[in-house]
């Protein structure tokens, strides 16, 4: 199906079809119908009386449609079906021919809709009688071939995409001539002349940059006949006129057979299929209390039937019936009373295709489509040969378009799957699921405005979202037992929601500082920390230890979220506060001294305990990074998720790290460490390292 012929279609219309189509519309009956209704309203009070004056009226003349009107009616219906099902991907143009050629539309998207088509036909006006022999349809056909050599937007884009597939874009199309053809000779002449023109114009197109030669063209000759007369020339196809052309001759008669013939054509040209939804309960127009069942026929790409029809033919033969007057089959599926919650659940479907109703204005059709447009979903049931039933399709509207979804009807290979609780991590009970829920909401996706053409940056909004997500997960312990910081609940709000932002305002910096300060004062007051629900970690731990753990974790958290200078301010504030605690004289409270001393003492005790615990765990197979490698340690946290180090967050910080942090924070206060020395190994710093690196780089690239 690549490069489908149906991508581009040109209609060439004979604008001289003034002859009557033989289709009559009785106008007099409309007035009679009034008398009928008034008599009904008058009830039993002499229905004959109001009828009497009518007898004297002169009957209204019936009106007849011209062949041209029939043609335009049929073509608009053809286009309606195509554009409903393939908006934007199947293009149709029109060329009308009388004395001159009228090009009614282009390949542009804005031309590809019904209102626009109606307007251009209105501007064109009714068919003209230009006299015998003055009509040259070949001119129209040549113009149509030229139109086909113009690339559509998609073709242009693919052709100029500079990828390897660019040269392989095939240009196929279909030209449909609508006229009255009287003899087989005319057909032969059309075919031959068309082929010549095609070859010639292909040469012309190949010589230009902006036109595309046609790889294959399907010529359809539609012979429009008046109602009542028998067509003398039978339907005929020439599948291989040449390697680049196929041809088809079809009769189309005005009157009742016009619509079915048209459906045959459109189904064949666009590979569509028909589904009849049966048993739709509808209230009667006259009697609202009773309801009857109706059928509605829909068109959609035939692929929507693949799932049920491909396979064993005898199993599905009972589904198919022929439409009256048409030579295509329709698959009958039964309406199921819709469940109200269907749309919020995820239904498993293998495909979804747009549909259109065949008789769009009929009452049952518009009832069904309005029901769907209002957001209800309808399941369709397929009766099996065995008598059982299965939901095979679903009708649903998304954003104004109605789709038919194909459901899975056979046994699923995913049946009886193990529960998530039976796999790795399934027995852990203290995942931070509510917090993760908030993370999901904070990382929800929404459509961004289309980037202006040409201004498309290298990074799409979706890539932006990936960065967003990675910022939000920089430091994210997945279980409660691996964190102290995130067990604090409202006490650290809104710090954790602010720090993950890309940029933060001054006000937000203040808010963060307030969180830190209020934690400080909580500690000073000796307020108990909210105990973690599932936390063994809080158990048996002294309050001071708990605070200590929180501070350590908070520092780590802030260190990881240095996205902007404003973020750094929060960290600075933390550092200052930390030192304030560590600097007893600042407190001005005598107790603090002792507290501090005790705390520090506890720290050591506590840490030893933790160390022990940790050591035990490490013996049990946990990856533990040697604590003297600080840099790799933090790197590990960046790349590896907490689950790999289950005891991580709180206990993963070793005594040495704590101590070094403390030392460095103390040191950082009075004067900044000389950079070189802080990075030095064994107090020896290599100078001009970059020079060496650059040189190596250069060497490396030269070697390449």
């Amino acid at each position, binding site marked *: 199906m690549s490069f489908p012929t149906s991508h581009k279609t040109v209609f060439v219309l004979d604008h001289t079809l003034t002859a009557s189509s033989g289709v009559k519309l009785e106008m007099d009956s409309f007035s009679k119908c009034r008398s009928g209704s008034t008599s009904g309203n008058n009830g039993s009070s002499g229905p004959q009386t109001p009828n009497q004056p009518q007898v004297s009226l002169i009957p209204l003349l019936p009106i007849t449609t011209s062949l041209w009107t029939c043609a335009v009616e049929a073509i608009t219906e053809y286009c309606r079906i195509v554009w409903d099902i393939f908006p934007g991907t199947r293009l149709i143009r029109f060329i009308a021919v009388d004395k001159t050629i009228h090009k009614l539309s282009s390949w542009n998207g804005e031309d590809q809709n019904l209102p626009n088509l109606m307007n251009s036909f209105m501007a064109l006006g009714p068919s003209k009688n230009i006299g015998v022999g003055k009509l040259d349809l070949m001119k129209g056909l040549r113009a149509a071939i030229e139109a086909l050599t113009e690339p559509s937007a998609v073709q242009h884009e693919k052709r100029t995409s500079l990828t390897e597939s660019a040269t392989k874009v095939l240009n196929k199309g279909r030209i449909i001539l609508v006229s009255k053809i009287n003899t087989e000779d005319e057909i032969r002449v059309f075919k031959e002349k068309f082929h010549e023109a095609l070859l010639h114009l292909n040469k012309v197109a190949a010589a230009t940059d902006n036109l595309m030669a046609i790889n294959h063209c399907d010529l359809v000759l539609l012979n429009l006949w008046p109602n009542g007369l028998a067509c003398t020339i039978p339907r005929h196809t020439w599948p291989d006129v040449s390697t680049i052309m196929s041809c088809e001759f079809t009769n189309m008669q005005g009157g009742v057979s016009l619509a079915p013939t048209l459906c045959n054509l459109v189904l064949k040209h666009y590979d569509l299929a028909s589904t009849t939804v049966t048993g739709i309960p509808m209230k009667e127009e006259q009697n609202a209390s009773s309801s009857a069942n109706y059928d509605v026929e829909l068109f959609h790409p035939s692929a929507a039937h693949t799932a049920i029809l491909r396979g064993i033919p005898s199993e599905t033969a009972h589904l198919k019936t022929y439409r009256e007057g048409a030579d295509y089959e329709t698959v009958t599926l039964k309406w199921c009373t819709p469940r109200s919650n269907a749309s919020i659940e995820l239904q498993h479907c293998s495909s979804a295709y747009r549909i259109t109703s065949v008789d769009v204005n009929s009452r049952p059709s518009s009832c069904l489509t309005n029901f769907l447009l209002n957001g209800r979903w309808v399941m369709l049931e397929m009766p099996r040969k065995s008598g059982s039933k299965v939901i095979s399709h679903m009708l649903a509207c998304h954003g*104004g378009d109605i789709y038919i979804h194909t459901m899975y009807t056979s046994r699923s290979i995913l049946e009886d799957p193990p529960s998530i609780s039976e796999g790795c991590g399934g027995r852990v009970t203290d995942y931070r699921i509510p917090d993760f829920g908030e993370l999901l909401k904070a990382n929800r996706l929404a459509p961004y405005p289309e980037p202006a053409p040409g201004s498309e940056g290298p990074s799409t909004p979706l890539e932006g979202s990936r960065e967003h997500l990675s910022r939000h997960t920089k430091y994210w312990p997945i279980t409660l037992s691996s964190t102290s910081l995130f067990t604090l609940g409202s006490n650290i709000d809104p710090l954790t929601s602010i720090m993950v932002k890309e940029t933060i305002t001054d006000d937000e910096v203040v808010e963060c500082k307030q969180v830190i300060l209020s934690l400080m004062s909580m500690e000073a007051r000796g307020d108990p920390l909210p105990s973690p629900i599932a936390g063994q970690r809080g158990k048996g731990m002294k309050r001071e230890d708990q605070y200590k753990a929180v501070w350590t974790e908070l520092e780590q958290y802030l260190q990881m979220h240095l996205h902007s200078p404003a973020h750094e301010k929060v960290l600075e504030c933390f550092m200052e506060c930390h030192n304030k605690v560590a600097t007893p004289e600042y407190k001005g409270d005598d107790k603090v001294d002792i507290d501090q001393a005790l705390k520090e003492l506890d720290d050591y005790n506590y840490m030893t305990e933790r160390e022990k615990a940790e050591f035990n765990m490490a013996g049990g197979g946990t990856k533990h990074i040697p604590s003297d490698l600080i840099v790799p340690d933090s790197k590990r946290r960046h790349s590896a998720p907490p689950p790999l180090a289950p005891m991580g967050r709180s206990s993963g910080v070793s005594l040495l790290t704590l101590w070094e942090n403390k030392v460095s924070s103390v040191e950082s206060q009075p004067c900044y460490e000389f950079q070189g020395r802080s990075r030095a190994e064994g107090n020896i710093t290599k100078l001009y390292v970059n020079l060496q690196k650059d040189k190596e780089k250069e060497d490396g690239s030269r070697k390449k």
Partner: protein
Amino acid sequence: MPTVVLLDVSLSMSRGVDAVSPCQEEEDTESQILRKDLAVHGCNILLDHFIQHCKLEFASLIVFSSVYKVLMPFTRDFEAIKGALNLVDECDKTCIEVGLMGAAQHILEEWGNGTPCQVVLVTDGNAGTGQHHLQKSMMSSHSRGASQFPLPFPFPAKLNIVCIANPNEPCLQTSKPLYQRLIELNGEGDILVPEGNLTKQSVSEMFEHLIKNNFSSYSGILHCGSLSAPVTLSPPPQPYCRHHDFEIMRVSVDPTITVLGFLNTGDVSSPPAFSRHLVLPLSAKGDMVMLPKADAGSDDEGTGNDEGKIPSFCVLLHGGLKRENMVALSQVGENWYGILYSWADNKKKSNLMLSLFVPGVDVIPWMGKLSNLGPASQLPVNPYGPSDTSSPFPLKVHEKKSYALNSVVWVRQGGLQSDIQKILRHARKLPDKTQSFYKELNRVRKAALAYGFSELLEGLANVLERECTLLPPISHPDAAIQLQHAYEALRSHDRKDSRQNITPLKTTFSGND
């Protein structure tokens, strides 16, 4: 992928390994091994692989000669298949067509036509006495297209033909082109022949090779920002290769699956999926762990439970998605996306599922281009609203479809009649229905002008004129005035302003409305 082991049980399978050259004395013991024993040996290797690595797969055993028989229908009980392999009888001649037909039938009945499957045809490298017939039916299948020949299978399937034969056997040489043709017909598959002489060892190697190329399980890493977990997908994702309108898509699933953001389940609106896969967390050692069913009180037993107690990001992700009723939009390959969500087969057991879309960014029309989705919180106005009451999805289409447009269709019987009747219904309720009357009138008038149907305008004018004369004496004076205005306007359609709609006449009576 469900797998059919299609085993040849023709008489020729009971040959010894050395059909060609009479064996040396010292290999006497080896030559007593029959080909069917080697076939069973090979099948057992395959089944053992399933037991070890693909616990959630299905396999079935079909034997064929001139008839086929389903010995084991699709099951996860691979031991049972191994048992059935030992009970295989020997029958008459090889008739591959029958065997393939049986496999196709069995798969269609069980899995329908949408599930990718594997057919492993184990035979002795001798297409058999039915060869000529097979060739003929293959030819006819090519020429007629819709014949009864089972290939290509009516479902996506790989056909691997495993030959229990010495590579240099003459009958293998004659059969091989035939096998090749079968695989070409099916589109996907391979012929496997032992390297070197036919021995238990070479057959084992051949089956190992088969497993490596066709039955290896997926192992990758699920990333969500800085969080990640090793996972496997069941069934293993298949590469996508299909023709789209303007390109041929060839893409396979990467070993990394990256979560890009989240969406409400209701907003994705049951998108069509190319395939679905269970996402199962792997242990640190890379094994898939299946803990014994959770029984109350009986934990802390067995080694498997240790894995259960090491936190996995998968479980957290599943819990979050389930709690918030959301899905995670994820990238699985170049230009290939899917959604992760919590899915429950029944009420009790829910699991993490991955639905892969068709590759491309423009695959779910109501979500727009996937690459154009970004973090909602960074938009000037969050489209979800402050209290989660609104949603930016589905994207509204720019142009309404005909069923939402009240479009004019007269090509079908009764279309025009009912449109005229509608005008008259409103005409009889003038002046109450003045607006509707003119709306319907203009709709028909516009269509008539577009269709070049000027006779209709004249005819309609006549009908309205008649209506005017038939107005009952008690009717509102405005009714007659509007009707007259309407039919006069209809008759003047060939004036310059014919594209202008007819507007209601302002009357002294209508001023009170």
